[in-house]
């Protein structure tokens, strides 16, 4: 089987077979990162541009390491140091990068849909590394890989996503990803952070956090994205933490073998209390490890095939 697409823009676009191909390929790549020489020559001579219009440590580093472990030349461009600050449009930036003949562009952008636009302007593959409140496909794929690794399956699991659903690209990608692989997704948030019609994406809204936690096999905690709130969507962090934060008390209702995911970075003490974040249920560091493998798989599947 082959990934017959130029770009990875959304999980919504991917079929179940494609997601499973990516996950099984990523599974093979996990071993590479455990070698002493963590480098394979597969993408030698290929150029991968990480174009980041938003601050990011985890995702950018993960893509960079993935590229380097495959021997590609990874070039990082961040908005603060580029011509973006001089007012160059995304289209012009795209045309200029295109002229340098890269083999892949990884884009992180604050505007939803920017990767779709970039993909129209450039011939090389584009990987969406998070666009506005839209999607973050590689994050969802690494979450799926982590769950599959830990629990052995996705099909039939109950996933609860807690937090700022309205502004979360991770939530959107994960709702598509988990439902496509046969899991049942419940979402819970303060109504001010619950977007209209989210249930059309195939998930169910649960009103009380406690109820959503007690049914879950997997709990995914989202970061409160204060930077995207024009006006505060809740009265105070203290109140949010008490009502929606995952703490020891709420975890008492959870299943014994529940696992917890958090896409990071964590606001410790806000959406998750430190003892839970560092506790035995937490898969946060497995997620980071799998992130590299998933991104290696994406590079391999997009660049390893034939050129037209």
């Amino acid at each position, binding site marked *: *089987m*082959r*990934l017959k697409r130029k770009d990875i823009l959304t999980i919504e676009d991917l079929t179940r077979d494609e997601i499973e191909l990516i996950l*099984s*390929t990523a599974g*093979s*790549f996990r*071993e*590479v990162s455990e*070698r*002493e*020489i963590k*480098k*394979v*020559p*597969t*993408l030698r001579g*290929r150029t991968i541009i990480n174009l980041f219009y938003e601050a990011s440590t985890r995702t950018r580093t993960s893509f960079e390491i993935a590229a380097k472990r*495959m021997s590609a030349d990874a070039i990082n461009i961040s908005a603060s140091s580029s011509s973006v600050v001089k007012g160059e449009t995304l289209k012009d930036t795209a045309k200029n990068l295109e002229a340098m003949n890269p083999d892949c562009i990884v884009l992180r952008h604050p505007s939803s849909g920017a990767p779709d636009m970039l993909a129209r302007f450039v011939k090389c593959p584009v990987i969406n590394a998070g666009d506005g409140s839209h999607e973050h496909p590689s994050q969802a794929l690494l979450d799926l890989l982590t769950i599959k690794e830990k629990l052995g399956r996705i099909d039939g699991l109950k996933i609860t996503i807690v937090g700022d659903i309205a502004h979360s690209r991770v939530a959107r990608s994960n709702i598509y990803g988990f439902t496509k692989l046969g899991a049942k997704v419940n979402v819970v948030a303060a109504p001010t952070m619950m977007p209209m019609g989210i249930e059309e994406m195939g998930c169910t809204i649960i009103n009380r956090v406690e109820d959503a936690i007690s049914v879950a096999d997997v709990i995914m905690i989202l970061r409160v994205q204060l930077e995207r709130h024009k006006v505060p969507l809740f009265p105070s962090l203290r109140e949010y933490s008490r009502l929606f934060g995952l703490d020891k008390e709420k975890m008492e209702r959870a299943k014994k073998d529940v696992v917890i995911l958090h896409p990071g970075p964590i606001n410790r003490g806000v959406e998750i209390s430190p003892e839970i974040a560092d506790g035995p249920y937490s898969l946060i560091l497995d997620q980071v490890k799998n992130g590299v493998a998933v991104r290696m798989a994406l590079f*391999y*599947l997009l*660049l*390893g*095939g*034939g*050129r037209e």
Partner: protein
Amino acid sequence: MSIKNIIDAKAIERALTRIAHEIIEKNKGLEDIVILGIPTRGVHIAKRLRDILEATEGVHLPVGSVDATLYRDDIGMKQDQPMLKETDIPVSIDNKKIIIIDDVLFTGRTIRAAMNVIMDFGRPANIQLAVLIDRGHRELPIRPDYVGKNVPTSMQEKVKVRLKEIDGADEVVVEAE
């Protein structure tokens, strides 16, 4: 399409037994030997060889797999990405005698890639190559140390090794258009 049966189950077993003895003879025993099969069928042949060797000499032999896909020289040239398979090298290979096992030796490119993988894992004392079938048409200066059977072929023919573990039966056939 014509199908020609080259060797049967019995002949495969005889060939592997002979190779096992050649390995013991050439290496004066089995000390420091590590067997690495190339997925998929090479791994199964490696395990069979290991079983014969262990039965003969009464020692334990490490066996693993080495997938050369990420080291191939045709990545990005074929339409489809080759499927990744498992690389599992169970012990340190420094100063070990590595025996690479594959089902069919053809151009030699896979073996070249496999040797590069192994080199990235350590510095073996030497690398040897055992194959069930050598069909000729080498494109690189690679020569097997142990051969089950030499089968002269044309470029248009396909050599297929079928194994019980995967295909339900042991045989080697040559298919021609």
